[in-house]
């Protein structure tokens, strides 16, 4: 049951009705039941695994709390986290490990293949984070199984995140009061914005991207470059769209999820980009992987720093799946970040000695960072071999160009969209970023909220109309596959 389906609309309406009519002490159970029903609609077998993992994490956390010796706490935490990692590796990496594992499974149950259950990476990261936070005493052990189970399975977040931290969720969820009408409207507005990004922008860009990325040899350098830019914006609109929907859905039930994006394509350097892109994953990896690794490698100086960054960025890439392209995506970002981090002080010194360069840097920093990310995301979008082919055809080496394809050609019919649709998409992207920017500034939020009601609701209805008129073939959310 996708967020984009009519069935989900009915499911949500029913869930809200039952949730709001239930007595407050029953609401967590209702929400938990609804979350499990949602998950079961995707994967009944996966629901059993979800329940089993939740129960294991619940007992392990209580066990960690029950130990008095530090070494015992450490051993139990390590065993708990390692077990969850094994589950992740078995399901997500079974293509790499498949020969022996699949052969064994084939002997036991012929015809059955191991397929990663939906949202596994998201809920396992929540579970691991919870255990580590209990060990580090950042969060109190949950005595209520319902609360913990709801945290891990909360249906708005289980398909595509964001990965909310346990402490943050329990703080907001505790006492689960009914959200007021203003919060409910904020949630609806966020869902509407998410749908607009997905249906109006991402799915339209997907048409062009599907053409350029499926057969690069048909396209010129300029067309492939345009395809690469469009993929970066499609990914952004698609992923931030599903995040908006998830945050909005959470707000309808009184739970505010963490933000995942903060104008990432305006980042001034690579490390800043990763503080603004998929923030819930990168901050998770920073806290639970990079920090312990960097601390244990700190005696190695610069080499230790570079190694910790590379391992962390490889983990970012491989979190998406066990493919060489994701590994390359992580490694490329790791190299970009190492170079950026190690040269930052020197670059700052250069710019400080030439103040006139500071204004140039304000523009070049985001521009260079954006292009580095567009390059890296080519490896995210296709297989490793295709990515090299794609990059090779963008770079104007006459030897690798296909005969008969002019390097500077720009054929809209071949790209699959009209120039007017493309212009409308550009306008849509500018509007999207203006809304992102405005929503971060209290004065612009206040201006919008103080506008007459008919203006605001007129905009909402106009957005709904544009979404309905834009619906063609809906493409699944890119991040629902992870």
């Amino acid at each position, binding site marked *: 049951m996708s967020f984009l389906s009519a069935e989900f609309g009915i499911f949500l309406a029913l869930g809200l009705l039952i949730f709001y009519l239930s007595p407050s002490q029953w609401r967590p159970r209702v929400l938990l039941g609804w979350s499990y029903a949602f998950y079961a609609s995707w994967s009944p077998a996966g629901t059993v695994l979800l329940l089993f993992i939740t129960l294991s994490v619940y007992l392990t956390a209580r066990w960690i709390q029950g130990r008095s010796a530090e070494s015992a706490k450490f051993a139990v935490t390590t065993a708990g986290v390692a077990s969850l990692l094994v589950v992740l590796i078995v399901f997500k990496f079974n293509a790499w490990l498949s020969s022996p594992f699949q052969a064994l499974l084939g002997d036991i149950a012929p015809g059955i293949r191991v397929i990663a259950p939906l949202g596994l990476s998201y809920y396992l990261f929540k579970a691991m984070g919870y255990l580590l936070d209990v060990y*580090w*005493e*950042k969060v109190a052990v949950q005595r209520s199984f319902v609360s913990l189970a709801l945290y891990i399975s909360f249906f708005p977040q289980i398909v595509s995140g964001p990965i909310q931290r346990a402490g943050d969720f329990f703080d907001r969820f505790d006492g689960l009061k009914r959200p007021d009408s203003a919060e409910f409207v904020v949630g609806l507005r966020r869902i509407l914005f998410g749908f607009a990004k997905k249906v109006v922008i991402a799915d339209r860009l997907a048409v062009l991207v599907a053409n350029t990325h499926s057969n690069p040899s048909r396209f010129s350098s300029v067309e492939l470059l345009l395809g690469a830019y469009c993929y970066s914006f499609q990914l952004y609109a698609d992923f931030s769209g599903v995040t908006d929907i998830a945050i909005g859905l959470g707000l309808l039930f009184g739970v505010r999820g963490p933000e995942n994006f903060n104008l990432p394509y305006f980042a001034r350097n690579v*490390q800043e980009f990763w*503080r603004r892109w998929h923030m819930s994953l990168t*901050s998770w990896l*920073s*806290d639970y992987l*990079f*920090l*312990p690794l*960097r*601390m244990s490698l*700190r005696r190695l100086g610069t080499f230790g*720093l570079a190694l*910790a*960054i590379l391992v962390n960025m490889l983990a970012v890439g491989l979190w998406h799946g066990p493919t060489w392209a994701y590994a390359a995506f992580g490694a490329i970002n790791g190299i970009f970040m190492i170079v950026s*981090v190690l040269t*930052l*002080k020197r670059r*700052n010194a250069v710019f400080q000695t030439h103040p006139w360069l500071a204004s140039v840097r304000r523009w070049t920093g985001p521009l260079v960072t954006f292009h580095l990310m567009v390059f890296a995301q080519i490896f995210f979008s296709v297989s490793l071999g295709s990515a090299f082919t794609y990059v090779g055809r963008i770079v104007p080496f006459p030897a690798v160009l296909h005969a008969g394809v002019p390097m500077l050609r720009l054929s809209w019919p071949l790209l699959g969209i009209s120039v007017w649709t493309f212009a409308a998409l550009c306008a849509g992207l500018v509007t999207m970023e203006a809304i992102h920017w405005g929503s971060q500034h209290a004065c612009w939020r206040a201006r919008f909220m103080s506008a007459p009601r008919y203006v605001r609701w007129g905009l909402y209805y106009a957005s709904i109309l544009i979404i309905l008129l834009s619906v063609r073939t809906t493409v699944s959310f890119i991040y629902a596959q992870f």
Partner: protein
Amino acid sequence: MTEAEIFPKLTAVFRDVFDNPQLDCSDSTTAQDVENWDSITHVTLVVAVEKAFGVSFTVKDIRGLANVGDFRRLIAKRVK
């Protein structure tokens, strides 16, 4: 070393790590208030503090830090 003595030395370490001679820290200063204070520079800061004060921290210590005040108190605990 008293907590009052720790503060000027800690500020000097912050200024050096964040490459900002004008940086002013108080107990309530957090990563949000200092440009470029992210997970990467955080450990660089921790290593610089360990070196400056001759102390050693664990991951658990570092995860518990919410602001400069927490850092100062942690150093005071270790120096004693």
